[in-house]
């Protein structure tokens, strides 16, 4: 049942590193994370890789397989031709810590600065609200986000242009969208999205949507509606005239 596969892994740190090739026996249904673990257990115990759930639910094992951002636990070895060497490298948009592990702490800092959820006053004296399924479904799509940061990794604004200081990235726009489209929320995040969040940097190439392992329609359902809210608020010519007249 098992066949020999060749896997090339990035081994090294921020300062220096190289691709090292390993041979691994691939059994039926094996995913790339299994191969990495087999190498770790038998050939390279100090090989660094993050993982937790091994079922596509926690978003820990993000890396790049043959240059494409993927979850290692949800990518089967059999998706690649048997004679092909599979190359696994760390996410490019974040600094390498070691081997396949990157420093993703920037995402947590960005998230912390998104204005917090702020519900409207309760609908009933017992402190409860009523929300309907059709209202919650829209933000529920964004709550599927497992914080794998693959969308951040693929986004050219971050990956190529390294605008981490100016652009919050698709994952954090999705995070803001949860609350912006939450039926109970009353906070206004438009100013934040426009300035600190740098939403204008997104030129809707939809690369993020393509790599999302949770199939969140990031660009169409989260980012574009947020952009529209900003346009309505800041660039509506009638509103601009009104602001001018009324001071």
């Amino acid at each position, binding site marked *: 049942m098992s066949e020999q596969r060749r896997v090339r892994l990035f081994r090294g740190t921020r300062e220096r590193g190289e691709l090292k090739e390993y041979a691994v026996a691939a*059994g039926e249904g094996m995913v790339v994370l299994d191969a990495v673990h087999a190498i770790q257990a038998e050939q390279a115990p100090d090989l660094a890789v993050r993982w937790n759930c091994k079922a596509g639910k926690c978003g820990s094992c993000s890396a790049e397989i043959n240059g494409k951002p993927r979850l290692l636990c949800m990518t089967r070895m059999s998706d690649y031709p048997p004679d092909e060497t599979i190359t696994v490298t760390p996410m490019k948009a974040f600094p390498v810590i070691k081997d396949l592990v990157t420093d993703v702490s920037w995402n947590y800092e960005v998230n912390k600065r998104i204005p917090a959820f702020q519900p409207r006053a309760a609908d009933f004296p017992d402190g409860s609200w009523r929300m309907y399924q059709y209202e*919650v479904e829209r933000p529920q799509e964004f709550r599927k986000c497992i914080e794998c940061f693959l969308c951040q990794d693929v986004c050219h604004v971050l990956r190529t242009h390294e605008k981490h200081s100016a652009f919050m990235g698709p994952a954090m726009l999705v995070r803001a969208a949860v609350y912006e489209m939450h039926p109970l929320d009353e906070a206004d995040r438009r100013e934040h999205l426009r300035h600190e969040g740098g939403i204008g940097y997104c030129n809707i190439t939809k690369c993020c949507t393509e790599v999302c392992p949770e199939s969140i329609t990031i660009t169409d359902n989260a980012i574009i509606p947020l952009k529209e809210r900003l346009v309505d608020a800041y660039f509506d010519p009638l509103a601009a005239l009104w602001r001018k007249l009324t001071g």
Partner: protein
Amino acid sequence: MAAADLRTYTYDVVVIGAGGAGLRAAIEASAHRGEAKVALVCKSLLGKAHTVMAEGGAAAALATVMKEDNWRVHFRDTMRGGKMHNNWRMAQIHAQEAPDRINELEAWGALFDRTPDGRINQRPFGGHTYSRLAHVGDRTGLEMIRVLQDKAVHSNIDVHMECTIVRLFVSGGRVAGALGYFRETGRFVLFRAGAIVLATGGIGKGWQITSNSWEYTGDGHALAYDAGAELLDMEFVQFHPTGMVWPPSVRGILVTEGVRGEGGVLKNSSGERFMFRYMPDMFKGDFADTEAEADAWVKGDRTKNRRPPELLTRDVVSKAINREIAEGRGSPHGGVFLDIASKQNADYIKKKLPSMYHQFKELAHVDITKDAMEIGPTTHYVMGGIKVDAETQEATVPGLFAAGEVGGGMHGANRLGGNSLSDLLVFGRRAGLHAAEAAKRGSPPHISDSEVDVTMQEALAPFERAGGENPFAVQSALQAVMQRHAGIIRDQLGLETALAELDKLKIRALETEVTGSREYNPGWHTALDLRSLLIVSEATARAALARTESRGAHTRSDYPDSDERQAREQIVIKKDGARMTVRHESQPPIPADLAKLIKEGS
């Protein structure tokens, strides 16, 4: 040891573990004392803890779907599900406070699925009399952890990510602090605190077939044990009935009980719905007798019909599956079939169980809207844990608290599905509250430099050895021992063998060798985790040997029946020098009104 190697922080409250219980505890501690300094320490990145994998929902008698529900029914279900072995007061507090904790999550931004009139929707689950699980499709845990995570980052809490604690310090009979290392740098950190909350989850990594991740090595259980706290009920390990069995690389991954809650049925190789044959006496009359009745219940007629037997408690269903397989009626890859395709239409399945659909499609190439899943039992949860006060969650060591899976008593001999997510909210909050109170007892006691130095030297010892054991090989040998001898069915000979094998593994663990640097070195992390795994494995085997009956999740082939005299007896584990001691302790009797409620219903 160079002091330069060590960073030191002082906090009022340190919470170890950042799943639902740890997050909830940290939020409460920081809210309770605005001026309190609170730290949250997580072994992985924030938001990746095991809570994220919880699927089906959180049990709370909100009565939004079935108005007959209330805390009394929930309490009764919990006690009966726990085979009357639960700490009755914890079960009562849990049932009473769970609705407030769920509503509170909504106020913090949670988006639970809705009823037609706009309230939180609730789904049926194993062992629950009424539809009781607040849920978000089949990704409830993800929703909960994200809401708690965002609440926590906007509270005044310092988060220390990818930091593993290796030792607690106790000084003058009180908790004084904890020593850990950061995975990234391999450097040590000392947290000085007079109140520490353990919320480290479970021990499932001690078995081969498990739904648990690498983190679940029983760290909190072992830290508390080493600090002199008592553990109880360690023989009660829940084997969830439905884990994936094929392909081999996904063996053990959880398949939510929600599949059965939404109408999924269990079948053997001859297509028989076998659960009708496994009705325990305790539940006779509560479940459907015929497939027609069960199907009518699934279709929504829930007042005139009774629940399908697939929704019996997890211990019962796991043992039934185990027997079907053992007697040759299993599926091709050693499981049984779980079929929802013939009971619900494809759109409904995709809407209610989206991540199950995705998981089987991607990992097993099975379309669950068309074909049956192959499933079998998987190690999932430990009911046993640190002995705590029911009201405060304080352990037998002052200043030490425990909440969530690492705490013991609440679930008795078997946990009901959905009671974990509510447990971690209810008792996470209480632990955080009382830890913040305990912090007022005064500044943390002194920790001696020599104790810190010795701990760091021990942790670094594997780097000094040459030609030693591979830590991954030792871990895998331990898993094989526990799977074989301390699994679903146990007996005296097997458990004694397990203890003898664990003794040998203790020596091997002391001979592990680690190569490479201290920076993000999983070989080293695994070598250090072995210490915890060995303690919890031994505790499980010793407690299982001491319980000479079958009850809930603990089944002895040499003592197949329940013994009423042992129903309220707990096996308590404590460290005495280098020795693990075992004693029996009787729980206080259940008050008459609650006993009557359990017996007769409300």
